[in-house]
Structure formats: C-alpha cells, structure tokens
C-alpha cells in the first residue's frame, strides 16, 4: 500500500515539476483547487454551488465573534461551496479572509434539511466540534437537490474513514485543551505527542511573547469557530496567526495551515511503516544526513541530546525514503530541527512532505532549480521595488544571493534567532512562499540607508548579520513616545514586510518566475551537462564537441529525461536505442521498420554495451560502445567487432557466432549492398570515370591540355553510373558469401590449435571438413581478421566504410535524410571538383609526357590514361593480396573466390538478374552452413532459429 502510494506521490510530484517547468498554470482545475485550499492532491470537486453560510456554535455569544446569528442574515458571508471526496469547502466570494472553511466529512455528525424560508434550499451541518453550519444554497432548486444528493452519497462513502477520527484528534493539542477544560465531549486523558520544546523549553521567553494570553485567545476561537478538521477561518484566525502562535499550539496550526494535517489523517500508519520497512538501511541520503545530524541547530539543548538527534534522524531519513527524488538536501536539517521543536515526529514528517512537494518545490531537489529561480526572482523584485539600492548593488558587484539564499532555503531559521524565525514561519505556512519574499525585501528596505553606504560584499553582509542580532531592540530608541519606543525592530520588519510589500503576492511572483524560468533551466542544464560529460569514461575517437551532441541526442530521446531528475540517472531502453541509432547510422532501418530481423544486430550491440545488465544503456555505456564502433584503426576495429561475438571472452567464436556475424555483416552492409550508398572504392571509380570523360572532352576540343592551368569542369558528365553501382553491389554480395565460406573453411577444430600457415598448405583440412557438424569449430581473432582482410570490400568496411556511416556529429535538429541522396553525392563530385580536377590533371600530365615520346595522338593518350587508371586499382588489389600473403589460394578455392566470374556476371544494362543470381548463391552457401549446423547435435535449437531466418 505504502509502496503504491509512494509511487503515486512521486508520479504526482514529478508531474507537477514537469508541469511547473513547462507550463506553470498547466495544473488541472482540481489540482489548482487543492493547492488553493491546501487539500491533498487526490481530492476532486464533486459538486459546487453558490451559497450563503451561517455558522453557529454553542458559544457564539462570545464577545469578539464577527459572524453570528444575532447580526442578521444580510451579514452572512456569501460565496461558493465545494464538495470533494472528503471535504466541504467554502470561501467568501469577496474576501477569503472574511470567512472560509475546510470541514472534513469525518467530522460531520449530522446533516439536516431545513424547512425553506425565503431561501429555497437550506442544509444544516452539525460537526464534531459542535459547530452548526447552515448552507443556504443559491440557484436552481434542481441543482441544489443534486448538491444535497451528492453530499449524502459522499458522506456514506466516507463512513469507513470516520473511525480514523477519534485516534487522530487525540493527537491534536486543541482537542486536549478543550477536553481538559470540559468543553469537549471527548475524553482525552493523555497529553498528545508534542515537540521537543515541551521537554527542552521553547526558544525565547514565554512571558515576553505573552504565550498564556495568546493561548486563551485560541481557546476562545476553538470554542466558537471549531478546530483542526472542522474549523471556520474568520479574520480573527488570521490576526491570531500574525501576532505569533503560542508555542504549544504552533505545530498544530502550522500543519493545519499548510494542509499536512490532512495527509497525516489519511496516512496514519505510514510514517511508522517507512521507518520499520527501511530500518537501518543505508543510502547516499542517509550518509549525508548522518554528516549533518550534529550540525543542526547545535546550540539548541535538544540537539545536544540523543533524544533530539534521534527524532531528527528519523524524520529526515523517513522523508529521504519516501521521496528519493529529493532525498536529503542540506538546510532541510535545519528546517526539520526547527519543526521538531514545535511538532511531533509525524507532524514534522508530513509537513516536510508538503513543504518540499508543494510549497517550495525545487528548493531542495537535486538541481535546486527552485532555489536558483527564486533567487533570480528576488533580485528582480529588488530591482523593481528598490531601484536605487539595486543600482548600488550592481555597481559594486555585490552578490545579493550570498545573503538571501540561506534566508529562503532555510526559511530564515539559520539567519535569525529562532524566536523570530518561527514567527515568520507562522505566516509562511498561512500565506505561502510570498512571505519569504516580503520579509527579504523588508530586510533590505529597513537597512536600506546603511546598505547604500557599503562598497563590497563583506560590509553588506555584516550589516545584515548585525541587524539580525538586534531584532529585539527598539526600532525607535530615541522616540519620546513610549508606545513608539516599545516597537521592536522585528515588529517593524513584519509591518514593512506585510504592509509595504503586500503587493508582492503570489501572482506577481508567478509572473517573475515565468519570466526567468527558461534562463534558469538553461543554466542548470548547461551545468548538469558539463558535469556529466566530464564524468564520462574517456573516448578517444569522439571529440568533446561530438560528445556534447551525443549528450543532447541521448537526452532528447530518453523521454523521461527532465532537468529535475538526478544527472546520470536516465537510461535508454532498446526502443530508444533503436531510435537513437537510426538517427545516426545509415545502415539502421528507420524506427518504423517492424521486421524483427532488422533488430538482431542492434539487440546484439545493445546487450553488449549494457554494462550493468539492466536492459538499459546509460550515456556512458553508449559512449563506450560507439567509441569502439567507430574505431579508426583497422586491426582494433576488427577485434572490437570480434569481441561483440566472443560472449565468453575466450577469444573464440563458435559455429552459431560465425553464422550470426555473417548475418549481421550482411545487415550492416545493407545500404551498399542495395546500391543506396557508395563506398570509397566506388567513389574512386566514379571519379576516375568522370576524369576520363572530362579529359576526353577537353582534349577533343582541341585544347592543349598540358598548357592549361585551370581545368574547367563541365556542369554535367555522362558516365556509366549504373555499371559502377552494380559493380559495388557485386562486391558486397561477393564479400558476404566469401566471408561465410572462408570463415568455416578456416575455422579451427575445438581440440587442436592449427597455425594459419599450415592451413594454406594442408589440403587435408578442407572447408568440407570444417562444415562437418560433428567437428565443433571456432573462429579466433587472427582467423577472423584474416578472413576480413581477404576481401577488399570488407577490409574497407572495417577501416572506413562502417565508421563513416555513423554520423555522430550530425546535429540534433538536422532533418536531412540519413541515407544521403545518391544523386547529390554524384553531383558533389563535380561541385567539389578538386579531386576530379586533380585526376584530370594527372591524365593530362601523363598524356603530355607520353606526347613527348609518341606523336600527339588523342586516342592513344586516352587509352594510356584509362589504362593507368585501371592499373592503379589493380595495384591496390595486389596490395590487399600482399596483406594476407600467407594464404595461397589453391585450385579448390578458386570457385569460391568469385573475382573473375563476377566480372562476367555483371550486366551493365540490368543488374537485377545478376543480383538475384548472386543472392541465390549466397543463400545457398548460407543454407549449406546452416544445414550443417542444424544437424549438429549440440545446439539444434539455435540452429533452427537461424534456419528460419535464412529462409525468409
């Protein structure tokens, strides 16, 4: 239960944070309603109506009462009445402070329908606190009927909750106070759980703060207006909060004002349960908490004793488990230490929840965005309300936040003596975060003249520091008027804050927050990004700039990412990974492809890169993996690829692995195999062909090419593109079929290590023997490399083609199709004509030199240049051959090395039949291999799977 609630709460708070970020007013109507009336987030308005209310209690005759039956109906507050799952809520239409109430349905004893007088419809509600609240519903009779009906149903539904009421009110000091004075029918024998102040003394002098008189006033108010879960708030209520709460009642009024009381009622066992469930478990948060336990209000007696420290530890750790997104933030220790002076542990726990989740969201979160934002808001409020002081601050480069940030973050508790800070908190819980701003502005205002004389941070700070130490002194020490003289600096501060800066209300703060939100988020993201990039493992193949792009791409894809979360906690699942790869890799089919065969290689990469085995990749996993994939060194690149299939890290890949590699190579080389992309060999051939054409054109124009410095490239050249394309397709198919055949041919039997050089001369080990399923075979790294290097196209794949097909640098917003348009590419040959021009020049030079020897004959020199062009590729091929010179190809292998035949197969006019034929060949080879392994006893299942894939 608690678990689901925790999840729900977190979801709600995350949602709120996200909404808060994106669209501050994006809360639903119900959510806004709950916030306005400090109700739990799960309440929704079931019905509402215009109404006038009359509140009568047994003690209404008491003198000070503003709303009483004797005053006549004209005086009844008019407003709106709302019904939610657990509450009846009313607010005065004109001024909330005139009359409002939030009555919990569990406190409703009886509802009567009154005989209609001049009003059409009246309901009388009798509460546990002996209030009689009469609602005169205004509106259509049918609507009023419906309201009454809904109320009836809701009350019935709430019945199971009523049993929670009695144990709960036994924890409320207000009830105890009345019971003790025989006002309440409730018998409360034991003193309700209280704050540490009860044992270790409350801060300040109770006589000076006239604690007793205040208590008497509250006592009267409770009798007349109700209390805790059924309280009618009248102007008196606000007045009594403003003058400072009596120490003993402080905790209860705080939780009533901020709404944490309702959470405590609804989740009576949760605090205890969290402590039981987590016990002594450790986390980063609990470690951080331990560091600070002895450093929280250390001067207060309770925090020099185990009792106080224990309470503090329990509340802070319980919260860190309840809301791991926030965990623990320094300053929370001070706030909770203060709460615990006036509140029981459970009260403090729920109040901390409301504080972090609702009142000041983001103040204590991992990025502290709320704190940063409100500091910026505060600065702009100073600028608006005290321009002269602001000019002075900026002129002298004074960092305002160094003084103001602790005020906000620790709710003045670390700045002012506790007696005064708790008075500010009285108002803070009543009217919200605007209080923090109002007081902060007032501090600067009151000290304005002195502050204007300062020139650096040091003197600025010390003026404020000194001021906090003399708050109890007279604000007008030299005034002859004793009444004036008795006003303390603290009183003066409050008056300035709540009178002069009353314009700084929630709306104004919201306007400012919205103005600065984006900048603050931008700054935080930049910082978080910098930190995370710095903490990534070293990736030599990825430049810092590229890393930065990868970071953005990673988080833009990981949907759940939000700045409010911890850096580095976001992970990428396979779906996101595929989307990521399809953005940057030319061989990854678009996200929309649903053919599972397309994902095999990606799945392979994914599980291989998943260092924690959590079926998700961190940014660091991704960077490490990509870094390997784009390795520029041919040998390393091949061994990286080999390692992907070497599951047991034994340097061996078995039969299934070999089949998998060949499948995956076929997948990866898809775009080139299908003629969608050109590799370097083809591009080079195209350049040669173009150069030939250009040269031909230039020389046939009769120009003396050798004399020309500038080679004019024509806007269009006709070459046989199709032929080159089909040659490439041919090469890739050949590469694929060659790979699988050679891999099995040179694969080694499990038992004995056979040297590569033996392979070449030992005819007894033929590929047929290797394909024999009775002989377990494996491929080791040198053999794998050899097989790859034996094929020009596959060698190029590992040295260049693969790396170049992964566009890590591609910017995030680029909408360009990943598969580059072939036409563009071809046109590019001419557009960036330098290479072609060089080739043409080379031809001209060679023509010129041959012209010295032979007569100037166009066709001759043309032939020479063509020849030289071709001989170059031949040379290259010879070089490749040299690379694997250890292997001499015997007669038997010739039919496998299709080089010579391939030429014949190419049909420049239509390459389709050739392609098909080649594909058939390839599949035949594969099937052969697969069939061989299918009959291989140990591993039939995997082979079957392979077989199916091959057949498709």
């Amino acid at each position, binding site marked *: 239960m608690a678990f689901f609630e925790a999840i729900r709460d977190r979801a709600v708070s995350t949602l709120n944070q996200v909404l808060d970020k994106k669209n501050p007013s994006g809360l639903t109507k119900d959510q806004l309603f709950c916030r306005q009336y400090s109700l739990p987030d799960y309440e929704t308005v079931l019905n509402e109506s215009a109404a006038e209310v009359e509140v009568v209690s047994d003690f209404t005759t008491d003198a000070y009462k503003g709303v009483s039956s004797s005053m006549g109906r004209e005086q009844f507050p008019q407003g709106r009445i709302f019904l939610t799952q657990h509450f009846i809520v009313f607010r005065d239409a004109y001024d909330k402070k005139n009359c409002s109430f939030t009555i919990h349905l569990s406190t409703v004893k009886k509802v009567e329908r009154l005989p209609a007088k001049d009003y059409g419809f009246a309901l009388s509600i009798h509460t546990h606190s002996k209030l009689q609240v009469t609602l005169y519903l205004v509106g259509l009779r049918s609507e009023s009927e419906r309201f009454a009906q809904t109320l009836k149903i809701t009350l019935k539904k709430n019945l199971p909750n009523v049993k929670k009421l009695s144990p709960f009110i036994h924890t409320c000091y207000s009830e105890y106070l009345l019971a003790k004075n025989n006002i309440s029918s409730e018998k409360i024998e034991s003193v309700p759980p209280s704050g540490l102040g009860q044992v270790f003394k409350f801060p300040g002098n109770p006589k000076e703060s006239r604690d007793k008189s205040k208590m008497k006033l509250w006592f009267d108010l409770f009798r007349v207006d109700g209390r805790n879960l059924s309280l009618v708030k009248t102007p008196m209520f606000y007045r009594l909060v403003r003058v400072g709460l009596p120490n003993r009642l402080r905790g209860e009024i705080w939780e009533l004002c901020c709404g944490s009381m309702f959470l405590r009622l609804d989740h009576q066992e949760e605090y205890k349960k969290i402590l039981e469930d987590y016990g002594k478990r450790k986390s980063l948060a609990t470690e951080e908490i331990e560091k*600070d336990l002895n450093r*929280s209000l*250390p001067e207060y007696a309770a925090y020099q004793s185990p009792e106080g420290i224990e309470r503090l530890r329990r509340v802070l750790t319980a919260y860190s488990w309840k809301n791991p997104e926030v965990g623990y933030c320094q300053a929370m220790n001070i706030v909770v230490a203060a709460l615990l002076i006036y509140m029981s542990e459970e009260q403090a726990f729920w109040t901390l929840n409301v504080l972090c989740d609702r009142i000041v969201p983001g103040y204590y*979160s991992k990025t*502290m965005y709320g704190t940063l934002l409100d500091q910026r808001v505060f600065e702009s409020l100073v600028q608006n309300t005290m321009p002269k002081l602001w000019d002075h601050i900026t002129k002298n480069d004074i960092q305002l936040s*160094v003084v103001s*940030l602790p005020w906000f973050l620790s709710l003045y508790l670390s700045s002012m003596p506790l007696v005064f800070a708790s008075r500010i908190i009285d108002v803070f819980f009543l009217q919200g975060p605007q209080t923090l701003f109002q007081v902060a502005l007032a501090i600067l205002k009151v000290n304005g003249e002195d502050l204007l004389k300062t020139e650096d941070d040091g003197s600025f700070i010390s003026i404020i520091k000194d001021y906090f130490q003399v708050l109890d002194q007279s604000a007008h020490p030299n005034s002859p008027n004793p009444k004036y003289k008795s006003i303390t600096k603290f009183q003066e501060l409050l008056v300035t804050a709540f009178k002069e800066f009353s314009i700084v209300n929630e709306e104004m703060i919201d306007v400012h927050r919205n103005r600065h939100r984006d900048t603050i988020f931008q700054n935080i993201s930049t910082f978080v990004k910098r*930190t995370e990039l710095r903490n990534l493992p070293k990736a030599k193949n990825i430049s810092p700039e590229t890393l930065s792009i990868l970071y953005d791409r990673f988080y833009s894809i990981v949907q759940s990412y939000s700045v409010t979360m911890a850096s580095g906690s976001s992970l990428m699942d396979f779906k996101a990974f595929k989307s990521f790869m399809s953005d940057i890799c030319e061989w990854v089919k678009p996200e929309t492809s649903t053919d599972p065969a397309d994902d095999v290689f990606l799945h392979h990469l994914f599980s291989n890169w998943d260092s924690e085995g959590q079926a998700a990749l961190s940014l660091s996993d991704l960077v490490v993996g990509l870094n390997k994939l784009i390795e520029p060194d041919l040998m390393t690149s091949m061994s990286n690829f080999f390692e992907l299939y070497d599951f047991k890290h034994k340097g061996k890949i078995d039969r299934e692995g070999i089949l998998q590699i060949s499948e995956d190579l076929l997948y990866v080389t898809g775009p080139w195999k299908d003629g969608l992309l050109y590799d370097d060999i083809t591009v080079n051939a195209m350049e040669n062909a173009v150069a030939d054409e250009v040269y031909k054109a230039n020389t046939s124009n009769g120009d003396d090419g050798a004399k020309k410095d500038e080679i004019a490239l024509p806007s269009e050249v006709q070459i046989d593109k199709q032929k080159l394309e089909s040659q490439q397709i041919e090469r890739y198919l050949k590469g694929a079929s060659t790979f699988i055949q050679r891999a099995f041919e040179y694969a080694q039997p499990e038992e004995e290590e056979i040297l590569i050089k033996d392979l070449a001369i030992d005819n007894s080990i033929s590929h047929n023997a290797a394909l024999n399923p009775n002989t377990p075979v494996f491929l080791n790294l040198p053999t794998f490399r050899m097989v790859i290097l034996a094929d020009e196209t596959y060698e190029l794949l590992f040295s260049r083609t693969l790396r170049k097909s992964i566009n890590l640098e591609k910017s995030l917003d680029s909408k360009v199709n990943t598969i580059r348009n072939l036409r563009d590419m071809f046109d590019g040959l001419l557009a960036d004509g330098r290479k072609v021009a060089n080739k043409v020049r080379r031809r001209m030079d060679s023509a010129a030199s041959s012209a010295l020897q032979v007569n100037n004959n166009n066709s001759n020199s043309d032939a020479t240049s063509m020849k030289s062009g071709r001989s170059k590729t031949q040379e290259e091929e010879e070089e490749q051959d040299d690379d694997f010179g250890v292997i001499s190809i015997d007669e038997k292998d010739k039919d496998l090395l299709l080089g010579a035949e391939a030429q014949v197969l190419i049909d420049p006019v239509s390459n389709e039949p050739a392609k098909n034929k080649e594909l058939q060949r390839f599949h035949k080879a594969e099937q052969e291999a697969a069939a061989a392994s299918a009959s291989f006893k140990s591993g039939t299942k995997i082979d079957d799977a392979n077989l199916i894939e091959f057949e498709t």
Partner: protein
Amino acid sequence: MSFPNPATSVKLVLLGEAAVGKSSLVLRFVSNDFQENKEPTIGAAFLTQKCTIGERTIKYEIWDTAGQERFASLAPMYYRNAQAAIVVYDITKPASFIKARHWVKELHEQASKDITIALVGNKYDLVEDDNEEDGLRKVSVEEGKGLAEEEGLLFFETSAKTSYNVNDVFIGIGSKIPETNAGNGAAPADQTGGEGRIDLTSNSVAANRAGECAC
C-alpha cells in the same frame, strides 16, 4: 600591526565535498578558532582576512561554498571572477579526492584563465599517528602531489583542527598571485616558480607565519 602598502584584494573561493572542512579552514584562518560541530554552509558564506607576505598585504575575500553535491550548480555564482581557489578534500575519504579532481577540472574549464588553485588535503590531525598500514589515511601524499603537478596546482596537507599548515595555504596562494596593483611594485618576484609549492611542514614555522597573518 600596520600595513605599509594598501592591501590588494583577492577573491578566493573554497570548493570541495561536504564535511571535508572548508568552513573550518576558513574559520581557522580568519579567527584562529575551531568548532567541532559546525553548521553546514547553506549556499555560501563570505569572510575577509588580511594577510601580509613580505612587503605585500593581501586582503582575501573568501567565498566559502556549500559542499553537498546538489549545491554544485550554485558554485558558478561564487567562483565567477575569483583569482584564487582552494579545492579541499579529506585525506581519510577517497571519494572526496575524486570530487576534488572534478572541481579542479571545472575551475580550469569555467573560471578565470589565470586563477591560482591550491589543492588541500585536510584533516591531517586524524592521520598524524597513523602507522604504515591500516591507518585512517586513504589518500596518500603522492596522490595529492600527483594531481597537483598534473594540473599545475599548489599542494598542501592541513589540519584545521590543529591549525597545521593552514596559514601556509593562504601565504602560498598570496605569493603566486600576480601583482596587479602597480603601486605595489615590490612583489617577491614569484619565484617559488614552477615548483610553486611551499611545503612548510613544521608546525613552528606555520605558527610563525600565522603571526604575520593576523589583523
């Protein structure tokens, strides 16, 4: 004590993991005091202290920052325009040394180009009586020195509790800060040079220096 020259103001920022003793170092330097349970710094604290090095007087404007990880995003606000930084770690906590490394990188990337940085391993008092093996010390002097050399930092091990080496840190930084005020010509021609490390290991010397530093 009188100061022959007008003081040069130096903005100095302290960075490092939570509870490594940043505030305690400052408290020792500024008030020659030590508190066992010091309240954590919320955001940042600001203190000043003058320090005489040879002919020169330096007025340190010290920004002591909160150490908890999440406060890190506030740090740029404080190290902005800083001429000097002290990156502190706890020699009994390896994690704090890793954090120190990050802070050094952050400063090199983000702070003023010519910032003078001192790397300080604090809580030396805890390892003073360490035996070779299984002592409390978890970060060796060599590791600290290594990082300092790699990154071009001053390096000290200190104890805010016993005041060991504390003033030397500030003197060391002061002598590396380039003379900006033309009137203060008589700078001790920098000069501890590439070494840059004033490792005055004896307590008596430190105490001596402390005398010069009072104001």
